[in-house]
């Protein structure tokens, strides 16, 4: 491992992913804390995503520190800073002094509140001319707000940039941009009036209000002596502004930047702007050797890295380290991938955690098919699919059905059967169906003892008694007047986690339920003092898919299944990668979107830029090249590429990713 030189004041460390930059930085952190005996609270480590704090967390775990320094995202840091300095914000912005503390909105809650503002526009068909589902409209307006904030643009400027970029194409889009901007303005006003701070406001208030405040400056400079900012290429320009400010304030700063990055561009990352930081750093170090990679993978990386377009790639010889399998049908592709994983794990003793299966999209059918086949072979697997709506999780459906039953809403026998099956331990699906049909009445659920004796016998007494207890609890706890988070907490504590019920020592459901409860609490907090029917509002919130599984899970020794975007933005390296569905055209997102445009909303883009097809085409080529490089640099020993002629939907597969590989390794033939 390469060590860093002594940092005099500021050092800019750059290089490709996989060259050991974060490892070197984390060792620097160890050195600062252990050797130089800096106080933990004097060190600030900024990362663009919580998952990227892993190398630092590992080092900190090895040090016996009384308390840990902050290893945090900039928005996380903003939340820490905004709590004590909230009165400054209230005064500066002339907010209602009665707002004694801010409420921080998660991404889910931001979507919910924006959705409320959007609703009247939606109902009158203001977005009829674009074909996006409601949640996508909300998502893209929020993306626009976040990108614009990170670039430092006002919403007015954002609106005019988007309109300018659309140019002379059909006219309906301009109206939609105007409406979206109006909603964004109303949303931000609403948030500030109610002290609700989403990601964009958190950043904005930190960088544009607090940083200019002498009290904050005094406090910050008094506390922090060391700053490490990793993956600055994945941060937005506003965060770079904050880092520029830190460079003047903090005595020692280490900035780390990946080459060919910027995978979070839809979240506001501005890799070009990040390079401006290099110019002001006093020292510059470049790491360019990839650590742990085998030669064939290294030379493939080098060939792609040296080529701006597929046509420029210098062909490489075929190598066993890169294998290609082509099948006709989609299920055959999954099967052949599973077989190769099995070979690696069982024959070559590769640890499952050293295998990553990457796909352009992780739709349910693919995930389910892959996981169930791996499970049959007793190969553990996990998947990362951020922002997956929790409404589809059976345990959450069960909780929602019970909430609705307590609210005396009519549910179908099938829904009740499913809920009871999961809620009552030992209740099999057949008896659950029997029980649900027997007790289901429009006015409410019948008690077990009121059923005919034959039915009671079929259902069995132990199940009947458990059912009765649950039924009685629901009857005794009407939801009216109590917030849903309290309802769920009580239901879980008093019934469902008790012996005889479905969540008693049910570890597999723990994280899902915990995340759901967390979301419910956050939701109810934002409604404190509001007259809204919280139960109905919460049900709506969940149904719209806003409650998502975004919390981090530990990575056990299991095969990881993830999208390329997840692998790149969370820096998930492994010895072996499988690229599934390599012929699909969805390996990278198109730049231009119906309601937003990350490139136009970058600081370096001239305000009157008209977005052309040439720009889109060139940027798509660059994006795909970065994606290929990013993935290859996170793959150490072997790459297995899988493609099928006909997609799951029956379409011929012909994406650009295959063209790159075809040209990079033309001798690559089918391995299976």
């Amino acid at each position, binding site marked *: 491992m390469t060590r860093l030189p002594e940092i005099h004041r500021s050092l800019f460390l750059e290089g490709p992913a996989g060259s050991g930059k974060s490892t070197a930085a984390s060792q620097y952190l160890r050195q600062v804390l252990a050797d130089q005996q800096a106080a933990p609270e004097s060190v600030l480590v900024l990362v663009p995503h919580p998952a990227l704090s892993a190398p630092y967390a590992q080092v900190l775990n090895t040090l016996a520190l009384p308390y840990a320094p902050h290893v945090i995202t900039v928005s996380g840091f903003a939340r820490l800073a905004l709590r004590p300095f909230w009165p400054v914000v209230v005064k500066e912005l002339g907010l209602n002094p009665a707002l004694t503390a801010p409420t921080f909105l998660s991404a889910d809650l931001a979507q919910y509140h924006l959705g409320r503002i959007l609703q009247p526009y939606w109902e009158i*068909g203001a*977005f*009829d*001319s674009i*074909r*996006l*589902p409601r949640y*996508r409209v909300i998502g*893209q307006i929020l993306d626009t707000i976040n990108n614009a904030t990170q670039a430092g643009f006002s919403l007015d400027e954002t609106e005019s940039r988007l309109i300018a970029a659309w140019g002379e*194409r*059909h006219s309906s*889009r301009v109206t939609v941009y105007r409406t979206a901007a109006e909603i964004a303005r109303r949303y931000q006003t609403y948030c500030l009036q109610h002290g609700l701070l989403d990601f964009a406001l958190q950043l904005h208030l930190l960088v544009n209000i607090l940083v200019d405040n002498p009290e904050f400056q005094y406090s910050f400079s008094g506390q922090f002596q060391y700053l490490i900012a990793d993956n600055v290429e994945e941060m937005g320009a506003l965060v770079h502004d904050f880092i520029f400010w830190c460079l003047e304030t903090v005595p020692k700063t280490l900035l780390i930047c990946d080459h060919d990055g910027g995978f979070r561009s839809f979240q506001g990352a501005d890799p070009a702007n990040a390079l401006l930081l290099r110019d002001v750093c006093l020292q510059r170090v470049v790491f360019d050797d990839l650590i742990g990679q085998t030669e064939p993978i290294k030379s493939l990386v080098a060939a792609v890295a040296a080529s701006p377009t*597929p*046509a420029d790639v210098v062909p490489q010889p075929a190598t066993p380290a890169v294998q290609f399998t*082509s099948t*006709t*049908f*989609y*299920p*055959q592709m999954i099967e052949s991938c599973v077989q190769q994983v099995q070979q690696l794990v069982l024959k070559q003793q590769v640890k499952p955690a050293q295998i990553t299966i990457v796909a352009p*999209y992780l739709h*349910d*059918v693919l995930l*389910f*098919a892959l996981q*169930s086949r791996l499970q049959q072979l007793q190969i553990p697997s996990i998947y990362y699919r951020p922002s997956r709506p929790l409404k*589809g999780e*059976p345990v959450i459906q069960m909780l929602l059905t019970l909430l609705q039953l307590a609210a005396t809403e009519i549910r*179908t026998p099938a829904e009740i059967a*499913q809920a009871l099956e*999961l809620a009552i331990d030992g209740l*099999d*699906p*057949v*008896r659950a169906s*029997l029980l649900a049909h027997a007790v289901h009445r429009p006015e409410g659920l019948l008690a077990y003892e009121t059923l005919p004796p034959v039915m009671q016998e*079929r259902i*069995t007494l132990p199940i009947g008694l458990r059912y009765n207890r649950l039924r009685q609890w629901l009857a005794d706890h009407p939801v009216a007047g109590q917030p849903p988070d309290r309802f769920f907490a009580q239901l879980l504590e008093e019934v469902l986690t008790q012996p005889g019920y479905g969540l008693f020592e049910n570890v597999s459901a723990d994280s899902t339920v915990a995340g759901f409860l967390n979301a419910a609490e956050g939701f109810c907090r934002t409604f404190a003092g509001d007259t809204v029917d919280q139960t109905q509002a919460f049900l709506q919130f969940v149904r719209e898919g806003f409650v998502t599984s975004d919390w981090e899970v530990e990575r056990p020794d299991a095969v990881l299944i993830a999208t390329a975007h997840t692998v790149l933005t969370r820096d998930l390296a492994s010895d072996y990668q499988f690229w599934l569905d390599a012929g699909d055209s*969805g390996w990278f*997102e*198109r730049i*231009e979107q*119906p309601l937003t445009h990350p490139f136009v909303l970058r600081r370096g883009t001239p305000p009157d830029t008209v977005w*052309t*097809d040439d720009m889109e085409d060139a940027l798509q080529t660059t994006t795909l090249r970065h994606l290929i490089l990013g993935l290859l640099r996170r793959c150490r020993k072997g790459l297995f590429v899988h*493609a099928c*002629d*006909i997609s*799951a*939907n*029956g*379409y*011929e597969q012909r994406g650009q990713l*295959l*063209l790159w*590989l*075809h*040209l990079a390794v033309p001798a690559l*033939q*089918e391995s299976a």
Partner: protein
Amino acid sequence: MTTPLHPLFRQAQQEIVHYKSGRLAVIAVPGSGKTFTLTHLAAGLVNKLSAKEVLNNTEILIVTFSNSAVYTLRRRIAQILQQNRGLLPYVGYRVRTLHGLAHDIVRERPALADLSDDFAILDEQSSRQMIREITQGMLRADQTWYEAYLAQGVLENRSRHREVYEHQLPDLAVQLCERFIKYCKDNRLSPGELYGLDLPAQSALVRFVSRVYDEYQRRLAYQGAVDFDDLILNALRILEENADFRRRLQKRWPYVLEDEAQDSSQSQERLLRLLTDGKNWVRVGDPNQAINTTFTTANPQYLRDFAQESGVRCVRLQQSGRSGRPIADLANALVRWTARMHPVHELRQTFESSVIEPAPPGDAQANPTFAETTVYIHYQEGRAINPDDELRLVVSSLTRWLPDNGDKTVAVLVPENRHGYRLLDLLQRQHIASEELLQSTSSVRQVAKTLETALNFLANPTNPALLSRLYADVWWQQRLGNTAEIEATREETERERTYREIVGALNRCRQVETFLWPAGGADWKAALNLTPDPLFADNLEQFRVMLQHWLKAGYMPADQLTLTLAQDLFRAPAELALSYKIALSLRSAQEAASAWSLPHMVNEVKAIGDNQRRFLRFEEVTGGYAPRPGVVTVATMHAAKGLEWDRVYLLSVNSYSFPSAQPEDTYIGERWFVRAQLNIEAELLAQINALKTGEPYVEGEATRQARLDYAAERLRLLYVAITRARRELIMLWNTGHYWAQGGSMVARPALPLIALHEYLDGTLSLPAQP
């Protein structure tokens, strides 16, 4: 690398294969080697691409009509090019249907069509389900429009009216809306434009369907989804509004070859015009084989007009080595009779005046000789046979013919699917090997039926009859668990007896839970009152375990549940691929529906099994369809296009399947409960047209025109069917059994059948030239 020209190209074919650039129309008679020539042309153009062009992803674009044609063309071009199959299959060319091409264009820049990256494509069944749901909702609010169209007496007769209102009307309304939406999309009419039309008070029907269309589009938009027709519309819009993107695609596809150009629609014509920019465009087709024009904007006139455009070179492929002379003569006779002697003057324009000529002497594909060729038309004046007898005649004929002709290919072609299914059933009972090219294939039906049986039990897990059926029709039929071992080790009689005992015991098991999850440590065998031998006991235990696994998966979404079942039930790649497709289709239907449960899912899968859904033939993907000697192909006449057999039977050549615009003819699309035999779909579209153009609407005129169009298309279909035969052609007709206004009716022999019969027996003389 250059590909040598095939040494045996005919002269006209040489001219096409040597094409360099510009616009070219190729009019080709059946069997004239159109596909052979086109694939060689494509391969030649691919070979001419420079290395740099290949690196820059330049391709020859080939557009054809059907998925099966895509696979066939692609395979043949690959064979000519002898490309090694590497990472990127099919380098230098791309074969697509119009929908496939539109999909490629939209998928590349979805935002230009106001779509997000992950936009969904609603398949045919999900789209139909959505339209049905909307239509039913709207029908509850607006029940008056249809009364104006009811036949006399229907409204007054309570039971008849009820039958119409409850059963006929909902289906009619859905069909009308489907046709209307498709028509509007083909003609690029948005709901907004329809609202802009000045609708007179009597346009209640137009108002109704317009509201359904509007709501349908709204729901699609809210789901971020498009249907198949939207794909084409959006591709067109993208190309029209984005000149820079259009130029990029024009550069990518410097040559566009269009196969089956007689089926080109208005949208296809427009899209390809935009892509070719008036430059290198080769259109190949035969206007006499245009058989997809009913209720679409497909029209052979586009090809005819193109051939006449200034700057377009036209080559005719008229020599055909496929059929023996008598068969080609019969096809030519049909053209001549229609042009000169058809009783309806308007129909005399049905065919292009082209003649199938024999292949030149020494040709690689020489025509079968006169001696090898026979034509027989089963017609005798005054004698009628019913549909069942017609099928029996064919089966009997095949039973006699097949033993001596195992090296030959044979097909039975039917005008509609149902008759084909019945024939297949008869053939199977007679143990005659058969294959099918009908709307759905037996593999689709088999997979769907198996899934339906399993899902039906999961939706009703306390029902012992369904449990028993699942064991008999799925578990035992699919030879799951240790069934094969039982077959190998137990005598057939013993096996059969125990199997029947088990099926009976499962059927009598009133408390299914005692079999699947016996309480208190009881033995599950006690629930069945059975003590089977150990192998059967193991078999039942495995069955129980599988059911427990499935039932516990019952909470899963439709797609995952289907896959769970499929993984246990199927092994063949095509079956698994089909299960995937069904799973995705169910997911799409689930998302399209406002309410969804397991019983909905059962109904959807049942509809697939009952042939109500069109599904991709996954078997064709690998090889395309090639008739096998000694195996009877049962196909619709439409599906038979592009194929040939040594012997061909044409069934149901009667006045219902091949009407001739005669006053006594009855037409598909005309309903007994609609007054004045109006074709309500045609009338609806005519009303829209009138509103759009400002021309007066005359009731009944559209019905008359629809009949003429349909009769013309059916004449062309007959021409296509006749020209599938190489050596032997047998035509039959039956009386059918059809509902018409005022009761049931029987069909008569089709007029062209009589004319061709008279031509064969010499009682009808036709002019030499069309």
